């Protein structure tokens, strides 16, 4: 069982919550942290590989960076729920408090992906978007499943 995708301090991980699952992404920029957290979101559902057959564009605008992060994850959850697609690759662009994201994925294959549980909403619990002293950005919150 692998619950992290950590490479030299950059990547995603799941962290403890009694009822649900925390996701944390980290990277050299806030963009990388958001992208890695999105991958952690997908890994709540499945550890299986996901093909990049479909591309979906999303946009979010918020009043602060932390709520923008919640909006970003909620936008992905919305696309999973309405398109029945899982995403395995993400590209984020942020200007001020406006985010444009590209998601690549494929339709859910219940046998191959064996989805463990359904992410239903990003919460404000354990919500943090911050840069540490070494310049590494972290974006995290608990996902309601």
């Amino acid at each position, binding site marked *: 069982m692998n619950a992290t995708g950590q490479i030299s301090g950059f990547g995603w991980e799941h962290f403890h919550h009694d*009822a649900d699952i925390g996701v944390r992404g980290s990277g050299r920029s806030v963009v990388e942290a958001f992208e890695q957290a999105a991958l952690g979101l997908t890994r709540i*559902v499945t550890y299986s590989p996901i093909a990049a057959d479909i591309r979906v564009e999303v946009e979010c605008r918020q009043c602060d960076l932390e709520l923008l992060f919640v909006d970003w994850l909620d936008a992905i959850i919305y696309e999973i*729920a309405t398109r029945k697609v899982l995403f395995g690759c993400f590209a984020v662009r942020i200007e001020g408090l406006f985010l444009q994201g590209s998601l690549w994925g494929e339709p859910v294959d219940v046998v191959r992906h064996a989805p463990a549980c*359904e992410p239903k909403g990003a919460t404000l619990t354990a919500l943090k978007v911050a840069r540490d002293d070494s310049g590494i950005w972290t974006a995290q919150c608990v996902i309601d499943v």
Partner: protein
Amino acid sequence: MDPAGFTQIDPVTWRIEPTGAMRVPAIIFADEQLISEMDDKVGQQACNVATLPGIVSASIAMPDAHWGYGFPIGGVAAFDPEEGGVVSAGGVGFDISCGVRTMLTGLSVEDILPVQEALAETLFRQIPAGVGSRGEMTLDDAEMDAMLTGGARWAVERGWGEEHDLDRIEDGGRMEGARPDFVSDRAKERQRREMGTLGSGNHYLEVQAVAEIFDEQAADAFGLRVEGVVVTIHCGSRGLGHQIGSEFLKEMASTAPAAGIILPDRELACAPIKSKLGERYLGAMRAGINCALANREILGHYSRQVFGRYFPQASLELLFDVSHNTCKLESHVVGGKRRELFVHRKGATRSLGAGHPVVPQAFRAVGQPVLIGGSMGTASYVLAGEPTSEEKAFSSACHGAGRAMSRHAALKLWSGRQIVDELAVRGILICSPSSRGVAEEAPGAYKDVEAVVLAAERAGLARRVARMRPVICIKG
């Protein structure tokens, strides 16, 4: 939590006196073992709730309380709109009106056992569950609004339920005051093909056998007998409820400071009941309640269809349907005075005692059925509301076992295959698309449900009527 940090009122009641910004005390109902095993965050969250404007009497936590979102899961709090009271999206939770319904089959375990495997497979095939599943129906805009206004009554009118079910559902199966026009297009789009789906995580459909009766009179009134078989469904308002919760949570979090509300935790995001935002949330949240009531009614209808194939004589009568993530306007006596309050129950069940006028006539002599879900390998319970729950907890009781460990921790201890095999040896069939999902929901990941319901009984919230053991469990 360390019980030493509380004032012990009696063996199952613990109190945190108001300090700092707390307007009222926090009260936790639990025995010493349960409270010792609760995360420190439960106490912190209960104290945070106690700081919200207009809160009445106390911030309350049930015996199954665990770390939630702003409110603890298992939290109860009432707010008075005449005293600046608030409504909180976090206090209702994301899965608006998540709840439980139990249906009586009229069958015995010996009727089920010869077809147990085939019945399990058919239920698993016919009940849409898990990521990627779609319902059989697609709602256009007009039907969506009709569903959000009509609740279970809408489902019955469309042929997905029976008229007499409505007497056995809270609020007669339809929540008044729903405003589909306050529900976003995205929330509606998310629900368009999700009616009649079970979901995933801790949601389930179980075929259960009554293992033990504690209260013969109430069991008679509820139609429960030892070795009788029931079907229990646990799910909620699916994508629509979550979208409503997510959208209003962010809006409330960003506007609370301007409304003069100081939030100790952003997840406690709320708005004054008497405000445009509060009114919009209440209208949307009530539409979410109707969505959940309709969804469980449809799932009950599917269950009837499947049972009808194997047991044409079985009629599957609804025992009761309760919601445990709601905010409802209710009349309560506080300090000898009747007040109209907005009662938030986040992971807590309404628990009306005998004689209460809202309890259906068939149960009025014994109290409202309170349905308590366990885990897939342990017991579930049917309780009856106690009149003393009015004074103690605004007529509320616990809602389930409550998780004892995270999904991450559960995955380190168990594999799905191991759980399925172990339960099969005990005569319990598990059907799930995901081995990992089964491991995350392992019975050992939950608290001892017997300790939880016993604490609720000792606290005077609800009393035990019957214990059920699982026979078939369908997980998303």
